[in-house]
Every structure is written in structure tokens, then in C-alpha cells.
């Protein structure tokens, strides 16, 4: 499957792609494919946002490198959903800049949004439509023809039991199944960056594990970048990157091991506690899953 169908340099395209030399920031000559790989999937630069006098985000800057699984870790009220509303252009970015694969959200929203897939925290499926109708509706909103959408549904749901239930109304599905369909929907138009806003909220432990595994499988198969907002430490893998957000500010950003090491902590849970002061490390360690 050509997962780089948006024109990025994929494995199959690499040899065919002309590589014009360009300049890096330090003046070193790099070829075009290298330069493309350097563009972050998501770059948030100096973004602030207020609700009246209450500042929800304060000069937030971080990047999601291409191909990375980045967890946006923060307690409830940290500003994660506000940030998602800004990245998806539901809210206007008044202070700072957001770029998706190099495209500024303000200047070129169409180019930015067509490379983005989103799973919102609240359910956004139309419960009166069938699963297939929900998926093809989303595909149509991205300009995908019905035939292409059907083919894509077959690709993503290959081997899944949900493939047998495409004709059923969405309201007949369980919470976990609805969430899986929303994740499938986010992948429909072959985005390069996926945002998931606390996708396991309200699900039981088994469903949560399935969702996490499903997303990681899709990320691997589709080679996309992920920004996963969560307040659940156990959803973070040692190989992930993490951005710690608290009171609207980024407190730390980097690989899990780097953040842990920088805080002289034994685990990311302990590092989080030290960074946020929400709980003593010993208390955090006792907390099973939820901070």
C-alpha cells in the first residue's frame, strides 16, 4: 500500500524523487528528501489562548517529529482540548503559529487540514447512520469518491470483526466499538498526522488496551505521526515522545527516557509528578492508572 500517497517521499517513490540540494539552518547542504524529513509533522510555536481573563494556553511551543508517537500528557484542565481545538482550526489561533507538515494553519488551512486526522474526546459519529455511512460521509468531506472510500474501508478494517457490521447503525455499537470506528474514520483520507484527544476516556480496561493497540498498529502500518492527548500514564510506551502540559504551559518535551532522566526520576510517572507537583512521587507510584 502506498501510504505516502500525499506526495511525500515513500519507500517506493524514493528513487524516483528528484533531490535538489537545499540549505539547512547551519548552511550545510542537504538534499530535498532529507529536508522534507526534517519538517515536523506538527509545529506549535508560541501559542497562547484565553477564555476571558483565564489563560488556557500560555506561550505553548513543541513539535511532533514525523513518524513519532507523541503523548501530550496533562491532567484534566491542562489545556489539551483547547490545544486540539486550535490545531483543528475550530478555534482561531490569535497568538502564535501552528504548522502541519510545514503548512501554516492560518495561511493555508486547506493544505494543513487535509493532512490531518482527528479523534475528538467527545463522540462525533452520527448515531442514526450506519457505520459505512459515517465513514463514507467523512470520506466525502475530504473529497474521496465513494469507490475509493469503500476500498479504503476494506483496507483498514481487513480482518476486523467490525468489517462484518458495516451496515449496522452506529447506535448499536458499544462505546469501545464506536471509538474504534472513529479511529478508523480518522485514517480514512490517509492523513500524515493523527490527533487523538483522550480517546480511551470512559472505556473499560480491556477496551482501552484494544484501542491503544489498534492505534499503534495503524500508526505502524500507515507510517503516520501521532499526537495522543492523555492523562493516563500507562498509555505511554518507553519508546514514545512526551510533551507535559500543565496549567497551559509546556513543562517538558522529549523522549520518555530523556524527560525521566532530566528529572532524575525512576519513571515517567515520577517525572510527571515532580514536574507538575500534583502528587508526591510515592503517591503517584501508588496510583494505578489515573493521575
Amino acid at each position: 500500500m502506498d501510504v505516502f500517497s500525499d506526495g511525500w517521499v515513500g519507500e517506493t517513490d524514493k528513487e524516483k524523487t528528484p533531490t535538489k540540494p537545499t540549505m539547512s539552518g547551519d548552511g550545510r547542504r542537504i538534499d530535498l528528501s532529507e529536508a522534507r524529513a526534517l519538517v515536523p509533522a506538527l509545529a506549535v510555536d508560541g501559542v497562547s489562548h484565553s477564555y476571558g481573563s483565564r489563560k488556557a494556553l500560555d506561550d505553548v511551543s513543541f513539535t511532533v517529529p514525523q513518524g513519532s508517537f507523541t503523548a501530550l500528557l496533562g491532567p484534566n484542565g491542562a489545556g489539551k482540548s483547547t490545544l486540539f481545538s486550535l490545531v483543528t482550526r475550530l478555534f482561531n489561533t490569535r497568538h502564535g503559529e501552528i504548522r502541519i507538515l510545514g503548512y501554516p494553519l492560518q495561511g493555508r488551512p486547506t493544505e494543513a487540514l487535509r493532512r490531518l486526522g482527528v479523534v475528538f474526546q467527545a463522540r462525533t459519529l452520527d448515531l442514526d447512520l450506519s457505520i459505512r455511512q459515517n465513514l463514507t460521509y467523512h470520506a466525502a468531506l475530504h473529497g474521496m469518491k465513494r469507490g475509493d472510500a469503500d476500498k479504503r474501508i476494506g483496507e483498514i478494517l481487513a480482518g476486523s470483526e467490525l468489517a462484518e457490521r458495516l451496515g449496522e447503525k452506529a447506535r448499536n455499537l458499544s462505546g469501545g466499538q464506536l471509538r474504534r470506528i472513529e479511529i478508523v474514520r480518522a485514517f480514512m483520507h490517509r492523513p500524515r498526522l493523527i490527533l487523538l484527544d483522550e480517546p480511551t476516556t470512559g472505556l473499560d480496561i480491556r477496551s482501552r488496551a484494544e484501542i491503544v493497540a489498534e492505534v499503534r498498529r495503524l500508526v505502524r502500518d500507515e507510517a503516520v505521526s501521532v499526537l495522543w492527548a492523555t492523562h493516563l500514564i500507562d498509555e505511554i510506551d518507553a519508546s514514545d515522545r512526551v510533551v507535559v502540559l500543565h496549567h497551559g504551559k509546556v513543562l517538558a518535551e522529549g523522549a520518555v527516557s530523556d524527560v525521566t532522566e532530566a528529572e532524575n526520576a525512576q519513571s515517567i510517572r515520577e517525572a510527571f509528578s515532580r514536574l507538575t507537583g500534583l502528587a508526591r512521587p510515592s503517591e503517584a507510584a501508588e496510583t494505578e492508572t489515573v493521575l
Partner: protein
Amino acid sequence: MSEAKITPMATREAAPAPEAAATPRDLPPFSLSAYLTCFSGIVGREGLRFLHQRERFVSALVRPLLWLFIFAAGFRQVLGVSIVTPYKTYILYEVYITPGLIGMILLFNGMQSSLSMVYDRETGTMKTLLVSPLPRWFLLVSKLAAGVAVGVLQVYVFLAIAWFWEVRPDWPGYLYVLPAMILAGLMLGSLGMLLSSLVQQLENFAGIMNFVIFPMYFASSALYPLWRVQESSPLLYTICLFNPFTHAVELVRFALYQQFNLQAFLVVVGCTVAFLGAAILAYDPARGVIARKKQS
């Protein structure tokens, strides 16, 4: 609490200076076909929702039919209608109010569409629409067109039933009235869309009924000719003249009898542009009322 921001070296190296960052190869711009696919997807979804809500279809028909069967029959003798354009002879009161009832269907349908937009916003399904990469004005116009298509379908079913009640314009009138209904539907749908951007909660929508639908409907030429209104109240007559719904009804009335009312046409087109423009601005995250409300 440590406030130090940790940015490991590896991350710093991976984030190039803006001037050095190459932009990705452009995808081809969305083709006309992609726009049509999106349009048909939105219209298709509205159609499916309409089919799933049979009660909505029935109630949309029952309302004007009650007016036609009961109100018009009762007032036939009370409200005599002299010869007024576009009619060439004396007509039954049922014939007179039929264009007004068509307007009623389109008005209620426009408000129903806006109600569903508020509902979509509350349930979250509106987000699916608004994060589409296609221009937001196009998405809103598509949604508007979908609502109008549903309204026009209801009107034709109503006209088919009214035919058995001796409301029988000439056959070409059924065709002539189509563009007039589309235009009137667009105007009323745009108004509904604008109102949906102002109404934040579904519960507040009842106010729309009291402050928009009923005044618009009753202070118009839908139920009585304007000369009759003028006779009883010059002030109300002026209000009726300034009511865009009056002009929507007159546009439909003239078209149903294969005539063109230029003044009504211009007012309806002007109001459509104004309402739709305001609705698009209201839904624009950079400039709109919604943006300001959320960010205030």
C-alpha cells in the same frame, strides 16, 4: 515544582529553522470532482437523516395541510379576496394562501435545518464537518443546499395533495415555481444558519419560534393581501413590506402563475446574500461570532 522546559538535543536537531524547512511536495489542489463529492456527501447525509426522521416529514406536511383544510375553509367566507396580481380572476381563499403555505414549509424547514445544526454542535457531529479541509463557506453552502432540497421535496408533496383540494395552477407553474422556491429556501435557510450561530444551546431555540418564525409568518402577505393589511393598519403594512418573508411568498406566488416579480426577486436575492454572508462570517473561526463567544 520544576518549571524547566526539557528539550533534548535530539529534538532540537530535528526541528529545523523555519527558513531551512522544506515544505512538502504539494498535493494537487482539490478538483471540481472532489468538491462535487463533498457536496453530494453532505446532501446525501441530510437526505438520509430526513428519511430516518419520518415524523419530521409528516409534521412538515400536516402543518400547512391543516391551514389549507381547516383555516382556509373556515375563513373562505370571511376573508374575500378581490382580484390581485398575479391572479386574473376571483380566487378561492385556499388558492390565495397556498403560496404562503409553501413559504411556511420553507420557513419551518430552514429553521429545522438550523435547529439540527445546533443539535449537531451540541452532540459534536458538527466538528466532523468543520474540520474538513474544504473551504468552510463551501461546506456551509452545501449544507444549506441540502436543507433546501429537502424543503422543496416537501413542497411538491404538499402541492400534490393541494391539487385534490382544488388548488390547481397550470402545469407549467409547477416548473416555474421551482427556482423561486429554491431562492426562497436559500434565503430562509441562510437566516436559519445565521440564527444557529447565535443560539448556543438547543433549549434556547424555542425563542426562535416566538421571535422569528411567528412574526415573520404573520406580518407578511402569506395569509392576507397587503392591501387588506394596509386598510386595517398602515404601520403593519410597512412592517410587512420590510419583511423579507413577504417577498419570498410573492416571488413564489407569481412564479406559480408563470409570472416574474422583479421587486420580490431583488429583495430575496439581496437578503440571501446578506444572511448567507453573515452566517459564513459567523462560522469563520478567525472572524465569527462563534469564535468570539468561545474566546471571550
